[in-house]
C-alpha cells in the first residue's frame, strides 16, 4: 500500500522528478564514465605493454648525475653486449635495439615538424624483427640502406606523407630519407610518433657510431624473467641495468598514467560538482513535493498514518528516483566514456571504443552514488514532511507559509561564515604557504557551508536590494516578480545555492589563474631584458642554431644557458642533488636577478647564485663555499655570490653559475648543448622585424622555435589554459545544473500559484506581463546565486593568491571581464530557465486557474 502510494505519487510528478533525475543522471554519468574510461584506457595500455615488452630489457645503468634533458648524447650499451646476453642460458634471442627521443622529424619540403604536438615523444630507432613489435608494416617494406625510413601510419597520415615521400631526421645535423614503408600499431598508438631506420644507419645517424640503446632479451621459457635478468646482468658486469617485462610495463604505465590521471581527476571534479549541486536540486525537489502535498500528508496523518509511514513514503520515492537516475546515469556514463575515447583519438592517443571495459565497480559506484545521494538529499524534506501536523489538512489552501525568522539557522550560518572568513584571513596572513593552504581549504569549506545555511536569510535581504529596481524598471511585473522571489526564501536560497557553488568555484579559480598569468607577466617584464627566447625541445639548441641566431640582422648579442646536474655540499656537510644553469657572460645584463643579498656581477668572478630557500636550509650567506660535484671526479668549490629572493617563477629552484666557471670543471666536449638561448635586439633595431628575421633564420631548424617576450607570455598563458578550459567546463556544467534547478523551482511555483495567476489574468494582467513576471523572478534568483557565488569566489581566489604571494603569485589580478560575463550569464541563465515555466503560465486557462482548488 505504501509502495503503491509512493509509486503513484512518483509518476504523478514525472515532470518534477525528471529534473532531479537529470541531476542524478549527470553525477552518476560522470562517476561511471570516469571509471569506464580509465578501466578501458588501463586495459588497452596493459595489453599494449604486455604484448610489446620483451622478457628482459638490458640498458645502460642510470648515471647518478645528469638528467636526460637536452643531452647531446644518448647513453648506450656496446655492440658486443648482444652477444654476451645471447650466451646467457635460457635466452632464446637477444636483439640490439636503438631508440632515441632526442630526434626531430621534419618534412624537408615544407620544413614543418612531423609528429605529435601534444608533448608525446617522437621515437626514432632501428627496425628489428622482434617477436613482440608494437607495429607491423602495412605497406612498403622494411628499411634497407642508408636512405630509407619507415614511418608510423598515424604520423604519416597527419603529415600527409606517403610511400616515396621524404622525411628529415634531425639529431645533431639533418639527414633526409625516403619513406619506404608505413607501419601501423598492432594494438594501440599511445600517441607517439615512430620512425625506423635500418640498424647500421640508426647507429650512425642517431648514436654516432656502433652501439645500442638497449638489448631486448626473449627467453626460451625455461627460466623466469627475474632469473634471466640477474643472469644477464651477471654476465655483463657493471654499468648495466635490466628490467623484466613486468618492470617495463610498470614504467610504461607510469608515463601514460600521469596524463590519464589528469583526465580522471578532472572528470571526478565534474562528478563532484554535479553531485553537490545535484544534491541541492534533489533536496529542493523533494521539499517542494512535500510542501505541495502538505494537505495530502496532513490528511494521511489525520486518518491515522504514522510519522514513519509518511517518512518512508517520501524515502521510497527518493529510492525510486535514485535507482532510475543511476541506471540512466550508468548508461550515459558509457556514452561519456566513448566520447572521451573519441576525444583521446582525436588528440592522438588511440583507444578502442569497441572494447569498453565495464567492470562491476562501475555499477557498484554508480548505484552507490546515485541512490545514496538521492536518499540522503530527500531525508531532510522527508523528516520535515513527517512533522506536518494532521491539522494542516484542514487548513485553508495556499502556499505554505515559512517561519519568518529562523534564529537557529541565522546563528549557525553566521558562526560558520564568520569562522570560515576568519580562517581565510588567517590563511592570507600565514607565513608558510603550506599552513596557508590548509587554512584556505578549511576556510573554503566553512564559508561554503555557511553561505548555504545563510542562503535563505540572505535571500530576503539580497533579493530585496536586487529587486528594488524591478518595480521602477518593469512596472507591475517587476514588483510581482520581486515579491515572488522573496516570498519563499528557503526555496530561493536552495535554488540559488546550486548556481552559487558552481560560480564560486569558477570565479575563485579564475582569480587564481589570472593572478598566475599577471604575476608571471610582471616577472617577465621586470626581470627579463632579453628580447627573444629560442628553444629546441629535446634536441637542445645546437651550436648551428646559436650561430644562426647570432648572425641574424638586428641581434645584438645572445646568452646561452646549459643545464647540468651536480651534487651540492654546503658547509654544514649536507649533500643534495641540484640542477645548475650554466650561463654565458651577458646573462646578468639580459636578466635582472631578484637579489636578496650579494651582487650579480659576482657570477663573472666564479660565484654561484642560489635560491633563498636553499640558503636558508643550509644557513648560507654570501661568500660561503659550496662544493659542486659534477660526477666523474669533476669537482669544484664555488662561493655563494648571490642569494635570490624567492617568488619569481623564472628563477625559483634554479642555481646559476657562469659557463666559464663550470667549464673549469667540465670540459666543453662533455657539456650538453644549450638548453635555451636568449637574444637581445641591438639598440635601434626593429624588434618585430628582427623577430621575423630570426624566424626566417630558424626555418631550416624545425626543432627550434623563437618567441619574443609577448610570445613567451602567450606560452605562460597556454600553460594555464588547460586549467582554464577545465574551469569553463565546470562553469558549463554548473550552469546546466543551475538552470535545471531554477526551472524546477519556477515550474513548481507556477503550479502552486495557479490561482494567483488566474486572478492576475482575470483582473487584466496580459500574457506578456505574466511571462515577464516569471522571467524576472527567475533572473532575480539566478542573479542572487551569482552574486553570492561571486562574493565567495572572490574571497577564495584572493585568499589563494595571498597564500601563494611568496611563491611567485605576488600580483593579484581580478578578472573583471570574467566576473561581469558571469553575472551577465546568470541573467541569461535566468531567462533560459524561465522559458518553459513562463510559456506554461501564459498558456494557462484563466477559468481553470480560478477554479483550481
Amino acid at each position, binding site marked *: 500500500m505504501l509502495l503503491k502510494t509512493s509509486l503513484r505519487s512518483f509518476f504523478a510528478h514525472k515532470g518534477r522528478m525528471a529534473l532531479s533525475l537529470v541531476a542524478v543522471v549527470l553525477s552518476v554519468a560522470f562517476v561511471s564514465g570516469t571509471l569506464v574510461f580509465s578501466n578501458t584506457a588501463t586495459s588497452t595500455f596493459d595489453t599494449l605493454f604486455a604484448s610489446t615488452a620483451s622478457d628482459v630489457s638490458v640498458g645502460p645503468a642510470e648515471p647518478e648525475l645528469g638528467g636526460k634533458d637536452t643531452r647531446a648524447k644518448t647513453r648506450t650499451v656496446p655492440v658486443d653486449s648482444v652477444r654476451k646476453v645471447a650466451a646467457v642460458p635460457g635466452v632464446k634471442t637477444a636483439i640490439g635495439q636503438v631508440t632515441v627521443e632526442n630526434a626531430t622529424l621534419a618534412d624537408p619540403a615544407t620544413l614543418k615538424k612531423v609528429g605529435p604536438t601534444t608533448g608525446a615523444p617522437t621515437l626514432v630507432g632501428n627496425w628489428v624483427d622482434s617477436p613482440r613489435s608494437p607495429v607491423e608494416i602495412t605497406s612498403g617494406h622494411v628499411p634497407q640502406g642508408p636512405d630509407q625510413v619507415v614511418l608510423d601510419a598515424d604520423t604519416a597520415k597527419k603529415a600527409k606523407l606517403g610511400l616515396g615521400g621524404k622525411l628529415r631526421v634531425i639529431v645533431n645535423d639533418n639527414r633526409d630519407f625516403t619513406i619506404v614503408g608505413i607501419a601501423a600499431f598492432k594494438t594501440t598508438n599511445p600517441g607517439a610518433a615512430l620512425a625506423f631506420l635500418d640498424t647500421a644507419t640508426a647507429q650512425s645517424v642517431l648514436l654516432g657510431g656502433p652501439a645500442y640503446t638497449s638489448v631486448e632479451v626473449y627467453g626460451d621459457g625455461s627460466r623466469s624473467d627475474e632469473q634471466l635478468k640477474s643472469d644477464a646482468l651477471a654476465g655483463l658486469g657493471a654499468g648495466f641495468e635490466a628490467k623484466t617485462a613486468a618492470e617495463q610495463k610498470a614504467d610504461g604505465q607510469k608515463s601514460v598514467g600521469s596524463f590519464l590521471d589528469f583526465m580522471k581527476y578532472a572528470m571526478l571534479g565534474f562528478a563532484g560538482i554535479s553531485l553537490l549541486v545535484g544534491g541541492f536540486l534533489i533536496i529542493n525537489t523533494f521539499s517542494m513535493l512535500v510542501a505541495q502535498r502538505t494537505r495530502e500528508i496532513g490528511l494521511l496523518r489525520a486518518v491515522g498514518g504514522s510519522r514513519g509511514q509518511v517518512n518512508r513514503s517520501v524515502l521510497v520515492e527518493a529510492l525510486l528516483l535514485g535507482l532510475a537516475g543511476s541506471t540512466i546515469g550508468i548508461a550515459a556514463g558509457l556514452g561519456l566514456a566513448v566520447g572521451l575515447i573519441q576525444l583521446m583519438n582525436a588528440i592522438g592517443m588511440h583507444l578502442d571504443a569497441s572494447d569498453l571495459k565495464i567492470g562491476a565497480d562501475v555499477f557498484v559506484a554508480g548505484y552507490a552514488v546515485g541512490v545514496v545521494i538521492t536518499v540522503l538529499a530527500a531525508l531532510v524534506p522527508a523528516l520535515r514532511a513527517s512533522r506536518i501536523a494532521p491539522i494542516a489538512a484542514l487548513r485553508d489552501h*495556499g*502556499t505554505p*507559509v515559512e517561519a519568518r525568522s529562523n534564529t537557529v539557522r541565522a546563528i549557525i550560518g553566521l558562526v560558520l561564515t564568520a569562522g570560515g572568513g576568519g580562517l581565510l584571513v588567517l590563511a592570507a596572513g600565514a607565513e608558510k604557504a603550506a599552513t596557508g593552504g590548509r587554512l584556505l581549504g578549511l576556510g573554503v569549506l566553512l564559508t561554503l557551508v555557511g553561505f548555504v545555511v545563510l542562503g535563505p536569510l540572505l535571500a530576503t535581504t539580497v533579493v530585496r536590494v536586487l529587486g528594488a529596481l524591478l518595480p521602477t524598471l518593469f*512596472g*507591475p511585473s517587476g*514588483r*510581482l516578480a520581486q*515579491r*515572488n522571489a*522573496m*516570498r519563499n526564501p528557503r526555496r530561493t536560497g536552495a535554488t540559488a545555492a546550486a548556481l552559487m557553488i558552481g560560480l564560486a568555484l569558477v570565479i575563485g579559480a579564475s582569480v587564481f589563474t589570472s593572478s598566475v598569468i599577471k604575476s608571471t607577466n610582471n616577472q617577465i617584464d621586470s626581470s627579463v631584458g632579453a628580447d627573444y627566447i629560442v628553444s629546441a625541445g629535446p634536441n637542445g639548441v645546437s651550436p648551428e642554431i646559436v650561430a644562426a641566431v647570432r648572425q641574424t640582422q638586428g641581434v645584438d648579442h645572445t646568452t646561452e644557458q646549459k643545464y647540468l646536474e651536480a651534487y651540492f655540499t654546503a658547509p654544514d656537510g649536507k649533500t643534495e642533488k641540484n640542477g645548475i644553469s650554466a650561463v654565458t657572460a651577458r646573462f646578468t645584463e639580459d636578466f635582472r636577478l631578484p637579489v636578496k643579498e650579494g651582487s650579480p656581477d659576482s657570477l663573472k668572478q666564479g660565484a654561484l647564485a642560489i635560491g633563498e630557500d636553499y640558503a636558508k636550509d643550509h644557513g648560507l650567506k654570501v661568500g660561503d663555499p659550496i662544493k659542486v660535484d659534477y660526477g666523474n671526479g669533476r669537482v669544484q668549490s664555488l662561493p655563494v655570490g648571490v642569494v635570490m629572493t624567492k617568488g619569481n617563477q623564472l628563477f625559483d629552484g634554479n642555481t646559476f653559475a657562469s659557463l666559464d666557471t663550470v667549464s673549469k670543471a667540465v670540459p666543453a666536449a662533455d657539456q650538453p648543448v644549450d638548453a635555451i638561448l636568449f637574444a637581445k635586439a641591438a639598440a635601434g633595431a626593429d624588434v618585430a622585424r628582427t623577430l621575423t628575421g630570426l624566424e626566417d633564420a630558424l626555418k631550416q631548424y624545425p626543432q627550434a622555435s623563437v618567441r619574443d617576450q609577448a610570445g613567451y607570455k602567450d606560452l605562460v598563458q597556454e600553460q594555464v589554459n588547460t586549467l582554464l578550459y577545465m574551469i569553463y567546463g565546470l562553469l558549463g556544467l554548473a550552469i546546466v545544473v543551475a538552470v535545471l534547478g531554477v526551472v524546477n523551482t519556477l515550474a513548481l511555483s507556477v503550479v502552486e500559484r495557479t*490561482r*494567483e495567476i488566474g*486572478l*492576475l*489574468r*482575470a*483582473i*487584466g*494582467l*496580459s*500574457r506578456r*506581463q505574466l511571462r515577464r513576471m516569471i522571467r524576472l523572478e527567475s533572473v532575480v534568483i539566478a542573479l542572487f546565486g551569482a552574486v553570492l557565488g561571486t562574493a565567495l569566489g572572490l574571497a577564495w581566489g584572493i585568499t589563494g593568491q595571498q597564500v601563494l604571494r611568496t611563491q611567485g603569485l605576488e600580483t593579484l589580478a581580478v578578472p573583471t571581464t570574467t566576473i561581469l560575463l558571469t553575472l551577465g550569464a546568470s541573467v541569461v541563465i535566468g531567462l533560459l530557465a524561465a522559458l518553459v515555466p513562463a510559456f506554461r503560465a501564459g498558456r494557462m486557462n*484563466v*477559468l481553470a486557474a*480560478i477554479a483550481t482548488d
Partner: protein
Amino acid sequence: MTTAAAAVYDPQLPGGAPAVAASARQVTKSYGAGETRVTALDAVDVDIQRGRFTAIMGPSGSGKSTLMHCLAGLDTVTEGRIWIGETEITGLKDKQLTRLRRDKIGFIFQAFNLLPTLNALENITLPMDIAGRKPDQAWLDRVVETVGLSDRLRHRPTQLSGGQQQRVAVARALAARPEIIFGDEPTGNLDSRSGAEVLSFLRRSVDELGQTIVMVTHDPVAAGYADRVLFLADGVMVDEMHAPTADSVLERMRRFDGKRTS
C-alpha cells in the same frame, strides 16, 4: 416568463446604449460533445442596466457562474453575442479581452481574491498598476473610506480577516472605476455579519458612486440588496424580480424548488 429586458433594449439600436452596461443575446455555452455534452447556458438573453445592482440566482449547476464568466470575457461562448458597454466582446482575441477586463471590468471572487505578496493598498491599486495608470487619489481615498479600510492598508492579506479581505477585494474592484463589477458569490465564505457589511458596501457603491454591479449568489438575503434579481434554471433565464427583498426572493426560490421537484 419572458425577459422584459429583451424588449426594452437592442444594443444594435442607436441611442439605447446609456442605459445598458452589458448585454447578451442568444448566448449558448456547451461543454464537451456527443454523449457527454452539457449545455450550461441555453440561448440566454440578458441586459445589465447601468448604475444598478443586479443579482443572478438559481440552483446549483444552473449556469450562474458560466453566465458571469461569459459576460466578463473570461470564457468564450458557443453561440450568441455579448457586449460590454458598446464593445462586442464575442470574437475578441485574448489580448483585447485582457485589456477589456483590465480597463472596464472589476472582479470579486468568492475566495482567493488577493495576492498574498502585496499589502491591502497594493492589492487595491493592482489593476491600475497593471494598466500603468495612476490611481485617482481622491477617488481612492473615498473608496477606501467607504469600505472602512483606512487603517489596514499596509496589512498583508494573511493579516486580515476573511471579511476584511473581501472588503479589500471590493475596494479593488471599485478603485479602478470599471464600467461593471462582477462578483461570484462574494459573500459566500463570510459569516452573516461580515457578509452584510460587504453587501452594504456594494449597495452604497451603487447608490453613492453610481457603480454597476452583477452578483451571483445563493443567498436570498444577499439578493435582497440588489435592485433586480435574475433567475436561472438549467441554463435558461426563467424569471426576474425588481426591487426584491430577502423574503420575496426566498418565496420565489421555494416555488422554484417546488416546481422542480414536482
